[in-house]
């Protein structure tokens, strides 16, 4: 990715915490990523990894009653070429962007559509609000949107209620609604999780077509690595509220650097039974479970489940560090790129290329080719 293109959205050091009776829960901690125009960045992680909170924080849709404490900066380039910080905008200005330049589709289309309004009116509402169209023109626009998302008999569907549509059709309506004002950034939070695979394929193809036609950027939040492999340009892997790895899609799947990403890919049954090889008798499984957000481990959040952990891992949270061009990982066992800033080079004696790695070490930050390595050192030996 070239340096000359300005990302449509840049997120820097985003943190979101919620005060609870049992203490402060940091759902999102120090999350940074960016999305280029016309590209799809996938936010991947398991439940509790903070991916949905990240998207709701960016959209400023967290309920007031949650008393969320948000920290960090964003830079969103508007259609007019202005750069704004979504977290610092006044509510009024945010409302003029939301549903207009920034829009969002949710996982469950039934609960995100209003059951008592006809779908035509729901789509028309946003263009009336943002584009100032009158009722008639807005309904005509809604009809064009339903055609755009390939809903059959759109003119008739316009006057139907959400309960009259199937799950796939409702998700198409959600997309029509989100697309109504021609957004430049679409946040899609698990948009196909509630759908059957053949319907999922239709919705993904539709999103891809719309992206190609409009040049919008997509922040795609999902736990489905199959979908990520085929529909993302860039992947951000989250674990326990933090980014643990960031890479373009192909290198990520070919050579995952972080032990969590390695484990996540290795434990997929579809990966295990790949390409004519005999099925392994056991799947690789990441042991244990995610620690409670109320009692995070002192060091790396993944350390208690990591097969490659060393004592230094539980000393402090490792920083997210560049490992190769366009790649980052939060792991002291992954060798940083020579360009990486000081703090990471001091870490745990990592820094000097390991002689035993031979030629490969000259390219620095070589990720492990064969996930999941068991016990063997990834890039460096035990530092002490």
């Amino acid at each position, binding site marked *: 990715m070239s340096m000359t293109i300005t990302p449509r959205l840049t997120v820097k050091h985003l943190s979101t915490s919620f005060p609870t009776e049992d203490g402060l829960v940091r759902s999102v901690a120090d999350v940074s990523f960016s999305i280029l125009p016309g590209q799809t960045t996938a936010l991947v992680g398991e439940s509790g990894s903070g991916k949905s909170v990240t998207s709701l924080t960016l959209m400023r849709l967290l309920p007031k009653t949650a008393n969320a404490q948000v920290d960090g900066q964003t830079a969103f380039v508007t259609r007019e070429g202005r750069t704004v910080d979504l977290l610092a905008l006044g509510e009024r200005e945010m409302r003029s962007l939301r549903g207009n330049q920034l829009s969002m589709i949710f996982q469950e289309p039934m609960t995100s559509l209003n059951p008592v309004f006809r779908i035509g009116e729901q789509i028309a509402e946003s263009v009336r609000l943002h584009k100032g169209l009158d009722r008639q023109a807005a309904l005509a626009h809604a009809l064009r949107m339903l055609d755009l998302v390939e809903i059959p008999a759109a003119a008739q569907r316009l006057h139907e209620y959400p309960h009259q549509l199937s799950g796939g059709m409702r998700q198409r309506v959600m997309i029509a609604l989100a697309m109504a004002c021609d957004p430049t950034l679409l946040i899609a939070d698990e948009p196909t999780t509630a759908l059957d*695979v*053949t319907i999922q*394929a239709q919705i993904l*193809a539709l999103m891809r077509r719309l992206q190609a036609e409009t040049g919008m950027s997509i922040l795609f939040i999902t736990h489905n690595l199959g979908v*990520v*492999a*085929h*529909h993302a340009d860039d992947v951000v892997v989250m674990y326990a509220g933090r980014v643990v790895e960031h890479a373009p899609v192909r290198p990520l799947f070919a050579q995952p650097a972080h032990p969590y990403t390695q484990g996540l890919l290795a*434990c*997929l049954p579809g990966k295990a039974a790949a390409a004519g090889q005999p099925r392994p008798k056991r799947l690789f499984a990441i042991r244990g479970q995610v620690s409670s957000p109320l009692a995070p481990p002192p060091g790396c959040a993944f350390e208690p489940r990591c097969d490659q952990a060393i004592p230094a891992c539980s000393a402090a949270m490792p920083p997210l560090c560049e490992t190769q061009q366009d790649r980052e990982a939060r792991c002291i066992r992954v060798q940083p790129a020579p360009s990486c800033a000081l703090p990471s080079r001091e870490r745990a004696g990592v820094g000097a290329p390991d002689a035993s790695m031979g030629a490969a070490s000259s390219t620095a930050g070589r990720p492990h080719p064969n996930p999941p390595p068991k016990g063997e050192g990834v890039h460096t030996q035990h530092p002490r």
Partner: protein
Amino acid sequence: MTTATPLIEVRGLKKYFGSGARPVRAVDDVSFAIRPGETLGLVGESGSGKSTIGRTVLRLVERTDGAVFYRGEDIGTFSGERLRKLRGKLQIIFQDPYASLNPKMRIGAILGEALSTHGLHKGAAARDARIAELLETVGLRPEHASRFPHEFSGGQRQRIGVARALAVEPEFIVADEPLSALDVSIQAQVINLLADLRERLSLTMLFISHDLDVVEYLCDRVVVLYLGKVMEVASTAELFARPTHPYTQALLAASPKPDPLQPTQHVALQGDIPSPIAPPSGCVFRTRCPHAIEACAQTVPPLREISPGHHRACLRADLLAHTAEGRLP
């Protein structure tokens, strides 16, 4: 089928919900057999009838027509003590580990209830020993018996669900989407657990899932369902290498593989799954089938053996040749 008597045989099974002129045809004339020690996968999208089949096989819901045989005996005729004994042999693991455990009961009581219902391990000491053993079998600790379900994570709860099913030493387990509520990393743990137990206890399993990757990994044979009817039956290796029914082909094509280097499949299927209240005439898949011809609307395609052990319900016999590669033309 081979010479071995199937442990479970389903013949012409029908389950219609609702009475009157337009019932929901959840399961419509389904037949298959499961050999001892075999894991049979039941795949299909929502509304295909896979969960209903699982429950009908166990008589948790009563069939409308057809029969289910356990070791050659029609379980529809069982009642009283005989039915209770049968239930000890046939067990189920449910999809939702949050809804399937009573939140007011401790784990020990949940497992103990299964034991006392079937009169196993009588006496407090024997019972507690068995509960401890069960918890260890599924990778939990004996002291977990005194905890409540809310104290466990989703993966642990699913292990408890597995332990409860195993408590009565069943021969046959229906696993109804046991993984779909779990995160990927936890899924792998439960898959390994099921695979281990199956081997150790020589269990026979009906594995219901919409996740084709999991089915490919775990099952010996697969039945593909669509709108309450069987589309295709074959060994797992055969089905995934040479899917011959247009629906199976579309299903495989639509499920994205976690590998960005594999070509992204084009959308093969248009439209939605029709309502099971008014299924299409003839072949139920014809409204979405890219190969449908006029005859498909007239005739219900019979399930025919196209090669040893590989059955398919499709009128387009001519398609076999050029779809042998498993791709839609």
